[in-house]
């Protein structure tokens, strides 16, 4: 909700303080909206996981939890670098902030790279519902499922792609914003009085991290591993 402006104080606010409060509140309202946005999918997930637990378990075993755990670590790392970027920006250390932002971008990209590898694997194994779903004779044994459960596996993978896809989309939107902020930070736009954009983007990035914190156990670690 950060409004780009060359002079930080916009005409309709009476003080930078008020402007920053408004931005923070706006960002939080936006995040609340995001919670419910992902919430729709989490609800579908909860319902179906309960109805078709064994199918979900079998499908979950097909995912590579090591990649998932690695990505979780990467994303947590990026959250740390993001927090440090906000910290640096708030102290007016533009260069440091820029570097931390760059690190965040780097970690975010690694995460997305791993996701590409995983998606590719699904493509190879024909595990993309609708788009590229293999014949039951192949998919069934691969997932250790038989009969109509193979069809139900599509439910799991629809949710898998829906949820991780939406999550990845949020990161893809976040990274260019981070890049732009890094540039601004480097150029010295942020001061001890005014570093709201970095702080707001930080909130967004941490939120994306939180979504993944839930997705990892819910998708990769169902049942006994």
């Amino acid at each position: 909700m950060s409004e780009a402006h060359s002079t930080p104080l916009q005409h309709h606010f009476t003080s930078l303080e008020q402007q920053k409060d408004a931005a923070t509140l706006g960002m939080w309202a936006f995040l609340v909206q995001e919670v419910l946005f992902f919430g729709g999918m989490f609800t579908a997930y909860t319902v179906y996981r309960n109805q078709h637990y064994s199918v979900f378990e079998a499908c979950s075993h097909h995912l590579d939890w090591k990649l998932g755990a690695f990505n979780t670590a990467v994303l947590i790392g990026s959250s740390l670098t993001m927090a440090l970027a906000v910290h640096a920006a708030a102290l007016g250390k533009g260069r440091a902030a820029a570097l931390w932002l760059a690190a965040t971008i780097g970690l975010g990209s690694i995460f997305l790279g791993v996701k590409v590898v995983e998606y590719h694997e699904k493509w190879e194994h024909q595990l993309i519902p609708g788009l590229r779903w293999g014949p039951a004779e192949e998919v069934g044994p691969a997932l250790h499922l038989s009969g109509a459960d193979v069809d139900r596996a599509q439910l799991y993978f629809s949710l898998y792609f829906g949820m991780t896809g939406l999550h990845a989309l949020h990161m893809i939107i976040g990274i260019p914003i981070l890049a732009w902020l890094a540039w601004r930070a480097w150029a010295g736009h942020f001061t001890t009085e005014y570093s709201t954009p970095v702080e707001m983007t930080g909130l967004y990035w941490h939120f994306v991290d939180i979504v993944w914190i839930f997705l990892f156990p819910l998708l990769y670690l169902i049942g006994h591993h």
Partner: protein
Amino acid sequence: MSAASETRQLPREHYLNAEYGWRSWLFTIDHKRIAILYLASITVAFFIGGAYATAIRLELVTPPGDLVLSESYNKLFTMHGIYMIFFFLIPSIPATLGNFLIPLMIGAKDLAFPRINLLSWYLYVIGLLFVLYSTAHGGLDTGWTFYTPYSTQFSHTAVNSAAVGIFIAGFSSILTGLNFIVTIHKMRAPGLTWFRLPLFVWAHYATSIIQILGTPVVAVTILLVALERIFHFGFFDPNRGGDPILFQHLFWFYSHPAVYIMILPSMGVVSELVTCFSRKKVFGYNFIAASSLAIAVIGFLVWGHHMFITGQSVYAGMVFSALSFLVAIPSAIKVFNWTATLYRGSVSWQTPMLYAFGFIGLFTIGGLTGLFLATLGMDVHVTDTYFVVAHFHYIMVGGAIMGYLGGLHYWWPKITGRLYQEWWARVSAVLIFAGFNLTFLPQFVLGYLGMPRRYHYYPDEFQVLNVMSSAGASILAIGYVLPMIYLAWSMRYGAIASSNPFDATGLEWRTPSPPPTHNFPGTPVVEEEVYDYASPRKEALLV
């Protein structure tokens, strides 16, 4: 109104003449101009929706489907519902009157995020364009409710583009709500405490809560439908173990609260009207304010009352029914307080007040028939019949639109700086009221007799009532076209309005009509209590 208005002059500079040219409109970040942009676009949507309604009522004059094919009829009511709900009624009051007035009422120069305000209008327009594109490709036939698996697997109409359009328009609504919440929290003028806020602002605050908490869920649900259609993902496919009823849960989690998005702002308008035209402080201010919040919150717990006969668990049905009754109480509180406000007042019968009367009466009927539907054993018979159609038109057309028109008339002098012609305005208000009742009262009877909704053909015995309804609809149509004409006429030829033509309280009446771009000369300081009608009016803040 008086002789004074002939000699009166518009302020030399105001938001309308501050800049000229299309750029000054399309790139404006002035909330008042954005409100005008919205006003124009929702009017278009309303008349498109109305054209569909006209076609529906024409078709239903005779029992056999002799005017259009069944395929087309199904598209008629779907497009009617989509334009009316998503592109007219949901943005109607918040995006026009709310946008225009909230900063004025709280003594701010603008909304907290002016650019996001403009963005929200663009999202609305892009959403609308997608739906128009879908219309150009024949439209869609899923009903505005998009029930699966029909919408995902069986409909071969232009569903995808409309789904994308609604998805985008949803974010327009979310951003409006977000903007209002932050504005109301952070931009109030000094001295303007929460309990000095006009009830219009309270109502919008409650509305915004719903917009932020509810809309994202319908957005993602529509997205799932689109993914299922486009990529053949299977979220609700019974052949893959999916549950079509889950779709309904997700859809109504938003769409029930959404009905309060449509009615709460209208209630806010009526609160303003009733107090101003009784020239008396509104009765039970705290209760009206709190009931808005109560409606917004409890409204989230009742969605399952749309699903009593789907095979939803009877126990869940019971809980949803009980909670639906609970949400009626705050609505009742409002109605009673409005009525009590008139007691010992000085009641003026000017046009906006006529609309407020209409609202109170018709909303009461609409709301009470909502209780029929919330009553488990009753709903089984009347669900999916014209009884439901009558219920929601009573609330949305009889209630919400009456409030919208009342508000539009009330603040019209503020928005344009000119007065409309009172005689024509009253005639239209009466026409609308009469036409409305003739259109929709017979539908309650039809519904109880068992005529299902979304029916192209119907048995002969239902014809009389259908003809009555269609006759009423034509009166209603005239009633809606008239304000278009005289309001447009007044923009050029109407008498010039003073800054406070209705002798009302509130900050918006203390700035010139039309207001200057930055609303107030400085930041106003509020010392008086809200709706202080007993004291002499404060004079205008001079620019």
